[in-house]
């Protein structure tokens, strides 16, 4: 106990600054990643090439070329949705956000599928 007190005594103002800065940095990064889905990814499939997998831990819009043209898919910190599509009925956009493993949005006219995939799949396929 005495030793600890000795160490505290030698802490200078600059040390405090460094300690506080690093503590808040650690706190901030933990709080940022706390609610992040782990082991979950976005899978995008179109009619032309092999499927692509993206991290969900980002905020970004992706352009994907489909049968009719270019669709835009928005990734926003763990959830995904269609935001633009050349299809006429826009069901894919109206579907809204998905964020759980195995949730899928299919745009049949543009032949693009987006789905959330991950390690802990609760089922193998979906009946609809």
């Amino acid at each position, binding site marked *: 106990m005495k030793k600890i007190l000795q160490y505290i005594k030698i802490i200078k103002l600059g040390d405090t600054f460094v300690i506080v800065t690093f503590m808040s940095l650690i706190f901030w990064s933990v709080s940022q990643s706390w609610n992040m889905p782990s082991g979950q990814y976005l899978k995008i499939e179109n009619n032309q090439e092999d499927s692509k997998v993206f991290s969900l831990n980002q905020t970004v819009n992706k352009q994907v070329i489909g049968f009719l043209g270019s669709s835009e898919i928005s990734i926003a910190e763990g959830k995904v949705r269609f935001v633009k599509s050349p299809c006429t*009925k826009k069901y894919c956009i109206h579907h*809204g956000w998905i964020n759980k493993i195995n*949730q899928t949005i299919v745009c*049949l006219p543009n032949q693009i599928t987006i789905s959330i995939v991950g390690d802990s799949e*609760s*089922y193998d*396929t979906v*009946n*609809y």
Partner: protein
Amino acid sequence: MRFHKLLLIVILFLVSCSQKAPIYEYKDFIFGTIVDIKIYGETEEKSENISNLIFNDFKRLHNYLHPWEKSLISSMNNAIAAGSVFNVDDEEIIRIIQDNKNLASKSENYFNPAIGKLIALWGFHQELPNQMVPKAHQINELLANVTTMDDLKINQSTLSSANRNFQLDLGGYAKGYALDRAKKILANNGVANALVNIGGNIIAIGMHGDRSWIVGIQHPRKPSAIASIQLPPGWSIGTSGDYQRYFMDHDKRYSHLINPRTGFPADNSQSATIMIPPANNSGALSDAYSKPLFIAPEIEKLQLADKLGIDFFMVVLANGDILISSKMNESIQWLEQNNEKNITVH
């Protein structure tokens, strides 16, 4: 040193424990929908080859059975509309037609593949529906002399119908039939474990390792599954729903599932899911027999399920209440944490 060796052995053991037999998955767009094949425990090369065999067979069926694009069936429909007889030198199509006659008659024509003209009138014989409710007199005209499979006469290899409104539409059968074809192709090529999904109609071949294949059942109004269920080896599952092909008019939903008795889209259900045990035509049954359970009025649904021998069914009614058979209720896993669900077990 000894410790390091031990550590190495432990790590190798753990790695070998965590290794699973591979699953290869292939997708294609056929029948206007997604076809998804998962093959378990085979090499990548074999999985890919067999999947391509299946995809090619499905493409053949699509071009052969398509109700409105150029196909054998649409040629037959044109001949019948013109009042002439149609010659088919094709055993498979005669077998398919016989099967449809049989299924339609058993289901009291709630499964009625002979109403292609009515379906076209509602605008569902095109990739994108018209989004228009037909005029009452147009519906009544077709309803006055509603076509059934009995109108189609088979005389050896000639097909004819006295009712020129007869138009065969296998949209409620072809995907299920394709599942049965896939089962044969997989068996002929020695694939013991696979899962085939054609636009939501699914057949399980064998298992996923030491457990059955598990299928999520789509919630008809939410972008997630309402429940999941194990699909034992050889079983098929099919759903008819009003949430894939439909249009809205004055806040009312009109789906592609037309009630042959009213001429209007059935509106008492959101979805009907059935599971069919292993049989030669298990896939076709799971496709065709979900229609009667979707379309028929609520009281008749239960009678029809008994009559058709459907032990596993679940219907989400128009108000969101759920009607479920006791056997289905025993095996289903609800995924929705929603206590408002009003479930009636039959």
